[in-house]
């Protein structure tokens, strides 16, 4: 568990270098498989592949899954509520990004 002081630990960037299976995603995000299946059904997550055993989640799904899990837990949202909240959050992010592109914006 301890890293030697001379050698910093390094690892891959999840979003660029990693795809996760359903089992891996559930383990990393500590959510039950049924939950992830429901979110896929709602379009919250969009894995490649047809059957759940073939699903491959892009690295960006990690953040999305954790976000969905926190919203579910803390705000007691149901899956359609999570889907709506994530869409609205995406839209707000996009608007904030647009603000940042103009002079003096986004601050």
């Amino acid at each position, binding site marked *: 568990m301890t890293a030697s002081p001379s050698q910093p630990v*390094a690892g891959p960037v999840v979003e660029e270098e990693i795809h996760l299976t359903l089992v891996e995603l559930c383990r990393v995000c500590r959510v039950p498989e049924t939950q992830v299946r429901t979110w896929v059904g709602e379009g919250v997550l969009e894995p490649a592949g047809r059957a759940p055993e073939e699903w491959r989640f892009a690295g960006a799904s990690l953040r999305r899954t954790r976000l969905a899990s926190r919203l579910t837990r803390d705000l007691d949202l149901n899956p359609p509520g999570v889907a709506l909240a994530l869409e609205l959050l995406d839209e707000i992010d996009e608007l904030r990004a647009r603000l940042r592109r103009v002079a003096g914006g986004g601050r």
Partner: protein
Amino acid sequence: MKFKDYYEALGVERGATQDDIKKAYRKLARKYHPDVSKLADAEERFKEINEANEVLSDPEKRAAYDQMGQNYRAGQDFQPPPGWDAGFEFRGRGDGGGFEGYSTGGGADFDPSDFFEALFGRMRSGAAGGGARAGRAASGEDHHAKILIDLEDAYRGADRTITLRVPTVDAQGHVTLAERRLDVHIPRGIRAGQHLRLAGQGTPGFGGGPPGDLFLEIAFNPHTRYRVDGRDVYLDLPLAPWEAALGATVDVATPEGSVQLTVPPNSAAGRKLRLKGKGIPGPSPGDLYAVLTIALPPADAQRARDAYAAFAQAFPGYDPRR
């Protein structure tokens, strides 16, 4: 240690029903949830609200808290009287399910206040509690933490020492938070919102199982000059009116050092000049945009006023509102 008024934290009366408490909690949770709110103190407030709810939504904890807290006010010095929790069964139960730290210190799943811990003990985190069945090997849990780096680190790559708070179980089964320092390599080209996976840096495995991984979410420290949008970086470039009108070559400080930028004649405020590939580096690097702003020199001396007057005379009939 100061006494915490959990009723005040949720904005409810002491006589509030469980329904009132739930309603108040939900309302505040939606407002201050760190994933939703951009308020500067959202994370701190959310932690307080969550902690208050953890106590007040559980009838048993609430009863114990009420019994002990009736003579205290928020902020007052406080030590729990010995045996205050006699007759209640929550101490050491520690399921702790449902909590996950938002602290930038990362690591720990639940980060209760000292006050909470003095009353209800350390909560056992999922990492310490779940998973391993007796005599069976199981892999350790994955951990998540968030770290703040400078934009410049993403341009160059950097080695940073981070401090994580990790729940550790002692021989008696109590959970304590141990500080753990870790030297981490930040790869060049990393962007905000991305995660590093550090293999084997999570919780140790049980019974010979492999350790979990540590996932580090990257965020940038706010910068006074630069705004970041994915791979692209924006900065404001103030120009004198004559530079914008006649064109100029100006020095611009970028995260990679100073560059010379040619401003074309007749540039209006808001125009974006793109420095291709000067954003966050990588296989497909981002761009750097200088957003032009026009600064007016003050007309605070006769010469300056004369210059503005001559300026006006040179543009008879010019109306910027038309």
